[in-house]
């Protein structure tokens, strides 16, 4: 729920500064401006940089308006994606302290399904994902988080059932998860189809801020791994090379295992 429209906070920039230099900040305006900027965050040449700049903007906003849920969620999500406070991004997972940040955000905003979903993904447990989903069963990323947690425990049928629905109605992030679970379950054809759908869904808006390069990297990685499982090493190599360039460590390992020059079966 939105905070009262004209909730304003008085900021004194330093101790001893007289009241004339105090600044009045309208938090509703700050929240709206951030939402508008977030909505236009696509189409930057340096997508990582655009995310990092917005991350700094969110941090700045929270200094004057600490109760803004959207900014708090954005910081948690960026930490989950591996963006450091300095703007750099880790290649191999969440930034240090990401889970603690998500949990702290959850304490401040216990009814926020998106913060709960970030916390659940970082936690990895089925319980945490169920708690997030209970806050808003219609929030697709929470459902996807539950599918991931179920698959991690080996219950791939339940995971796939959680993601039930037409491919065309799902976000690229959900399709990536679906492809991964299908591959885990030994259904390489199904994984290939879902990965292809994810790559083609790359033009759609994701429900959460997600670097489009990550979607492409994961889709290419899964296309490569599925192709390899289907006995198509040349096709697999092509996708795995692309995924490697986009930063996939799994693709790099798989690429090393594919013997060069091996003939592709039909």
């Amino acid at each position, binding site marked *: 729920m939105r905070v009262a429209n004209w909730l304003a906070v008085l900021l004194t920039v330093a101790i001893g500064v007289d009241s004339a230099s105090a600044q009045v900040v309208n938090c509703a305006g700050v929240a709206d401006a951030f939402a508008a900027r977030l909505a236009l965050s696509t*189409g930057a*040449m340096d997508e990582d940089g655009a995310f990092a700049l917005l991350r700094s903007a969110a941090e700045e906003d929270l200094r004057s308006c600490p109760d803004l849920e959207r900014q708090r969620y954005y910081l948690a999500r960026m930490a989950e994606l591996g963006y450091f406070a300095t703007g750099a991004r880790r290649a191999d997972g969440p930034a240090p302290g990401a889970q603690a940040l998500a949990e702290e955000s959850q304490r401040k905003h216990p009814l926020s399904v998106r913060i709960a979903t970030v916390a659940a993904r970082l936690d990895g447990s089925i319980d945490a994902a169920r708690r997030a989903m209970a806050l808003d069963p219609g929030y697709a990323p929470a459902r996807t988080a539950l599918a991931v947690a179920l698959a991690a425990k080996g219950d791939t049928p339940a995971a796939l059932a959680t993601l039930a629905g037409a491919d065309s109605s799902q976000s690229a992030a959900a399709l990536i998860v679906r492809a991964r679970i299908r591959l885990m379950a030994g259904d390489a054809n199904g994984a290939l189809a879902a990965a292809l759908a994810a790559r083609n869904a790359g033009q759609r808006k994701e429900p959460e801020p997600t670097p489009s390069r990550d979607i*492409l990297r994961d889709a290419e990685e899964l296309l490569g791994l599925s192709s390899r499982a289907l006995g198509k090493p040349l096709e697999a190599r092509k996708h795995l090379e692309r995924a490697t360039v986009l930063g996939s460590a799994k693709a790099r390992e798989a690429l090393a295992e594919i013997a060069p020059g091996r003939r592709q079966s039909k």
Partner: protein
Amino acid sequence: MAHFDKFANLNLLGWNKATSTQTIKVGQNAHIGLWGGGPAGEALEVFGDDDRICVTHEEPKPRQPAYKDWRHFLLTGLKPGTINVKAFLPGTSVEYAKAIKVVVTGSSKIKLVYFPGERDDGSTVIGTIYVIGGKGEAIRAAAGPRVGYKNPADGGHTAEPTPAGHYTLGQRKHVVTSGWWQSSIPWGAKLRLNAKGDVEFQDDEGRGNWVQATGVDGVLTKALYRYKTHMKEKTNLRKVDAELRAALINPITKVLAVTTWERNDFGRWGWQLMRNGHGTVYFVHTTPLNEAAFKADKNTVADLTNSHGCIHIDPADRDDFIKKGYFAAGTEFEVRPYSESGPP
């Protein structure tokens, strides 16, 4: 023991086998081979003792079975002087081959040579721009990825390796292109609200004309609309205009959120790579994130990211090379192949 020598058809010009000395002129290259490895066949670490005089890169290994025990190195002379190129057992200071001497002579006009594929830092491939005929300066730079790809979210742009070849630098400029919607306004342009409530920008860092940015005829509105329609988003100019206003104008106070445009994707300055007098699609430039970090702290070291084919540099290095006159229109700029790696 391993040893340096010429193998196959490597050019013998300037090579004195008796003294193991290679002589090259400033700005020229020579090739040398290294036969063998460590006692257990391990790859030796090869480097020169002063990369400001001559820098050593490794070429791909020869494919012919006859040369399977050879490694191939490229020596590039940057300024006059003498260095030793040595081969060490990995992780030690133990030399495992007799060093060669490289004598760099003569002089050269300023030329920049860029090795884009020197090393991989996580998923980023990072290289170095070396100054030939200068004082041995070198700066980090990140070009396009090693292997090209097309990201559907990039509005039709592809990401590709920066092509090797000989270029010259074009004029320094604030790059403007509607191909990237945030670059439809030059970096540093002043912003204001006109009487109708539309956002206008002033070109050329406050010295040019005022141009409409928002509104259905605004430059920014049209560029963003083009991007969105390319992305198959169902929208129209009025809707896009409203979205832009929401982001640029504080909805409560009705004042501009920012009064200077610092979102141009090419950063403050860009230099187009020219080939045979014609502009290419490749530029040497910075990024908005690195500009913001540099603005906040002049001593910050930029985290460089791979581009779509341009060459990303650190704003601090950019300013340094402008000051020294290296980034100037007409400066020769050579891009080497990604396959040349190192120095360590």
